[in-house]
């Protein structure tokens, strides 16, 4: 006796959260059944393995049919075929678009192209996430990217509107899309200590301050691309390190203000010129795409690592950066105060986030 056909269709579509998770995690029906057995469900319910197998198959089939709709979540809400309570719909969507930290760190900033997709095998092996799950996550990134890339309006809002994600998840996707679009390098060894959350935090600051949308909310692509004019203007900051007098003045202002307040004062004093040069040079180089991509590498190399090697506590870094940015306002010869604030305000936030072990 073999079962040829075995289905269950409810007027309200049954969703089992545990099975959904197994499905999202890319387990085969067989593996999922084994995992469920291990969870002790048979003992709890008195069911047999055959029942579990049939139940799992059924749920997998349902998810498979729903997947098409999950690709365009508004469709899931409008469709008539599956009657699903709104709270369940929200759960289906949110979980489908959720991603693994380990996975996102691998592809963050990479071009969402076929080439990257081919590398998913390696990522799967490296992270221990099933290939199927990697594909889903990758395809989600790509799908969201495609939909929002040429839209006007706030990136987060667009993601939220077209994919009906929670605010938190929509912000994460905005960061992923922003990174993918600007191709920031995140995979270098020295960046490995950074979490996705660190990058997402920086992305949000950069979107708020450095993109076209920061100055004009009526342009296409406004949150995706950095403001080219702004990057061009950043060259003007060069004077802060090129002009020796200005640099000395800047240093003395900072040192005066921080004397006695900083545990690492002497190290700071000794390193000031190097640090300042690093930060300003990062700004002036941003006209080149290559250097934009290396932004985070540069920040870590030029600022985070030197400070870390001198064992600056975070509080000192914060004091220093605050004073460092504020003191520029007292430099009489420097005329690009607004530009400096737009640059340094964001950078300060990023650096503080990036500064940890």
């Amino acid at each position: 006796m073999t079962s040829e056909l075995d289905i269950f269709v409810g007027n309200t579509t049954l969703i089992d959260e545990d099975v959904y998770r197994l499905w999202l995690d890319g387990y085969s029906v067989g593996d999922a059944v084994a995992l469920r057995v291990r969870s002790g469900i048979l003992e709890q319910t008195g069911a047999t393995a055959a029942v579990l197998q049939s139940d799992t198959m059924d749920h997998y089939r349902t998810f498979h049919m729903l997947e098409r709709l999950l690709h365009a979540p508004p469709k899931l809400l409008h469709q008539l075929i599956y009657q699903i309570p709104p709270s369940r719909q929200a759960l289906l969507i949110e979980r489908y678009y959720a991603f693994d930290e380990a996975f996102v760190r691998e592809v963050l900033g990479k071009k969402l192209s076929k080439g990257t997709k081919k590398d998913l095998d390696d990522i799967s092996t490296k992270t221990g996430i099933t290939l199927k799950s990697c594909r889903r996550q990758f395809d989600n990134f790509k799908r969201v990217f495609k939909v929002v890339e040429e839209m006007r309006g706030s990136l987060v809002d667009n993601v939220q509107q077209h994919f009906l994600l929670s605010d938190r998840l929509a912000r994460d996707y905005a960061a992923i899309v922003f990174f993918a679009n600007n191709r920031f390098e995140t995979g270098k060894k020295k960046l490995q200590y950074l979490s996705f959350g660190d990058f997402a935090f920086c992305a949000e600051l950069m979107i708020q301050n450095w993109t076209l949308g920061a100055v004009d909310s009526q342009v296409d692509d406004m949150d995706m691309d950095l403001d080219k004019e702004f990057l061009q203007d950043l060259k003007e900051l060069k004077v802060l390190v090129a002009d020796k007098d200005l640099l000395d003045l800047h240093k003395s202002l900072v040192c005066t203000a921080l004397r006695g307040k900083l545990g690492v004062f002497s190290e700071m004093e000794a390193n000031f010129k190097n640090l300042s040069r690093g930060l300003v040079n990062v700004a002036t180089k941003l006209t080149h795409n290559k250097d934009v991509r290396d932004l985070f590498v540069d920040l870590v190399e030029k600022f985070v690592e030197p400070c870390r090697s001198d064992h600056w506590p975070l509080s000192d870094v914060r004091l220093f950066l605050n004073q460092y940015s504020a003191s520029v306002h007292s430099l009489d010869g420097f005329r690009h105060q607004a530009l400096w604030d737009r640059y340094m305000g964001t950078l300060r936030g990023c650096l503080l986030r990036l500064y940890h072990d």
Partner: protein
Amino acid sequence: MPGKLKVKIVAGRHLPVMDRASDLTDAFVEVKFGNTTFKTDVYPKSLNPQWNSEWFKFEVDDEDLQDEPLQITVLDHDTYSANDAIGKVYIDIDPLLYSEAATVISGWFPIYDTIHGIRGEINVVVKVDLFNDLNRFRQSSCGVKFFCTTSIPKCYRAVIIHGFVEELVVNEDPEYQWIDRIRTPRASNEARQRLISLMSGELQRKIGLKVLEMRGNAVVGYLQCFDLEGESGLVVRAIGTACTLDKLSSPAAFLPACNSPSKEMKESPLVHPPSHGCRSTHNSPIHTATGSRLTQNFSVSVPTLIYTGMGSGSAGKEGGPFKALLRQQTQSALEQREFPFFTLTAFPPGFLVHVGGVVSARSVKLLDRIHNPDEPETRDAWWAEIRQEIKSHAKALGCHAVVGYSESTSICEEVCILSASGTAAVLNPRFLQDGTVEGCLEQRLEENLPAGCGFCHIPYDELNMPFPAHLTYCYNCRKQKVPDVLFTTIDLPTDATVIGKGCLIQARLCRLKKKAQAEANATAISNLLPFMEYEVHTQLMNKLKLKGMNALFGLRIQITVGENMLMGLASATGVYLAALPTPGGIQIAGKTPNDGSYEQHISHMQKKINDTIAKNKELYEINPPEISEEIIGSPIPEPRQRSRLLRSQSESSDEVTELDLSHGKKDAFVLEIDDTDAMEDVHSLLTDVPPPSGFYSCNTEIMPGINNWTSEIQMFTSVRVIRLSSLNLTNHALNKNFNDLCENLLKSLYFKLRSMIPCCLCHVNFTVSLPEDELIQVTVTAVAITFDKNQALQTTKAHVEKSLQRASTDNEELLQFPLELCSDSLPSHPFPPAKATSVDYSSFADRCSSWIELIKLKAQTIRRGSIKTTVTVEKTSPMGEGNFRNRSAAPCANSTVGVVKMTPLSFIPGAKITKYLGIINMFFIRETTSLREEGGVSGFLHAFIAEVFAMVRAHVAALGGNAVVSYIMKQCVFMENPNKNQAQCLINVSGDAVVFARESELEVVSTQQPAANCQPACTGGEVTT
């Protein structure tokens, strides 16, 4: 020109991409009714076209309005080649033809294609302007309401129940026309869908005419089926009960009754039951009148059951003369009718006087021998014959009517088994004629009918019983005779006194049969049928006893014929009726004496059985009050005779069960184990696993003994097909496979629905088919309803009282009985003075305690009951606190997808049905030539059933409804050809579209009229965009 149909095509959405180059579609719509077609403009390059068409107007006869469906086709315009069809929508406009139902159909309909399934949606508005037609010779029957519900629909009152209506129409099946060889599968499927839609319309119109002739205005318990006879044609047939219904206008009239819908509504919409049991079977090949062609005719009639009597033998009692009078009147009322049949399964209080037992008839026919396949005469004659037989069986049981009546067929190649079954009953004539018999008679009658047990009393003459049965005095009123077991096809009457809870009982059986042709085949089947009926009956009886119960309700026996086997599946809900005697145990007798180990084995089995019975009694809370035997007078003529199974001569050689009366004086059912098969049978009795704790199941409307439903419901359909390995095909292996299939299916259901615990699977409806040689398909539709566990503990007493209480309120409100009745009726069932004729103590050895205790108990319940009822009122109101608001207005175009509930029951727990919008009767075909790509057979059928649900919901929503009640999947024919990567499936569903309102809402509705559509809290909630 009595009608104008107006159609407006508003918009489309989610259309499929038809032009690969642009990834877009140039869609337009054809609207067709009868022979007239209109077209919209092409809306270019969009997947969400906004046509906003003018009103297309069709001026048509109302006859056409009833017959024809409105056909909407969405196409993709192509300049250079033929336009491609995207899909179609058929809209049945019947609901617009009667005044109280829907006034407009407006909403999003899934666009359906028989090859691709649902492809987007279309927004349509349909209206009908009807002109009054005074033509007396009209052919239409607009205005007659149809209900699938097999009881008087809520919010209506039955003025008269006229009786049986039936009709049958035949046509050539498009799939078998020569043209089918050259047309595409799509064209063929669409021709079939359209034809069935037309035939259903015609059928409904014709039945409507019959109803008008009878001066009725509605058909209740309408059951329409189609038979795919293959070469000989396609038959659509329907039966129903004609009634004159009155709308209950004032909400006050029904509000009180609705507080406990769970009890109030006990009807089971689908009645497909056949018969059961075989004590007197006769096997009679009959040559039909059709000249030389021989049609095998066979019938099994089974007046097996067990009844309850009013006992004309004891006519000396007070009630006697009145009953006699009543009987005369009823008879005269019914005799005018050709067939005094009623498809109802639940009745207004007082309608059902006595129940005789299940009557059934089957007949085997050869389809290729029909003289005039295109004419309905032959089939009409077949059914008439069967109905005649049913009628005579009923008469033999001293009954003049058959209730819970239904008909079914099973077809395999050219062999067709026609089956009919129902419950023989004595009815109160009051509802059958125009208010003639009012007055004192009625009044007296009511007094004489003790509530809660009257229907159990035997209707036949105890001295002249149609079959041997064991009678005792009713355990409730002590006045009348009752049988020891009662089988019926109806729902448990609301006023019945039940002890403990009920449970689903199934008998399953397979019999191998040689492949044969024509007559030989028909004869082989005819010869097998009585054995199957007999065994099914034995199984039911054993399982019933094993559960410690004494009555079956909603019995439905389905016999399915296949190429090389016959399958029998009987489902029923077992209960313990307080009026009937306690069932005896089951005794096992070995046939080989002098074998020590064997004896030991037997006694081991016996112990297991006894344990099971004890366990079941505990599980189902069956603890009847003990009755002292001294007080009970029981003049039972031949107490021993009752347990003897009589077999007709024809099968007497095949001894399956033998009575051994030496096993004590209890009325034990004795199973004799004389070979391994018998042993296996006993084993299989014990393998039925009870549902996990927190779960109950039944196949009636609601579970006896549970009455505190909460509002969560989940209707589902589950289908399983297994392939038998052809090697080990023995009856025994087959039985085991089939049994496992059903048991596993149930287990899966319990597992899937575990999150709803505590809950009850209601109206569990199994259908078996044999699509191919080695395939068995089982389809189950049921609804899971949650209930409140805490209240669930109060079972019998509260229940009894509630029903008493309600019977009286109902009487006042619905039947307009004189008020004093309710106050009178309770105290006035006098427990009759113990009849001291011949007392048979021995048969009651296991019951004791006095009937005085019973009376005390009753008095208690009565007191408690009144308190209880008020509690219920308070309880129900806060239940769904959410401001649920059903959408009675047309669904607004694109904002929300409203929740539409579906249930096979006639009610929605915790809610009140405020309006019936019309009948939903839909037929779909789905075919695929890319089975693997669609996820194999499971993927294909899963998607199709989901689509069918979606289309039903969309139609209901468009009518302005929010639920389908009495929903039934009448057919699910699945065929596959995996080698060709093809599959096809036909599904036929029906139900009643309704508007319901939460009870909590009804109370506030007057205060907050306009509030917007918001319905959070309660179960489904709405999907907002």
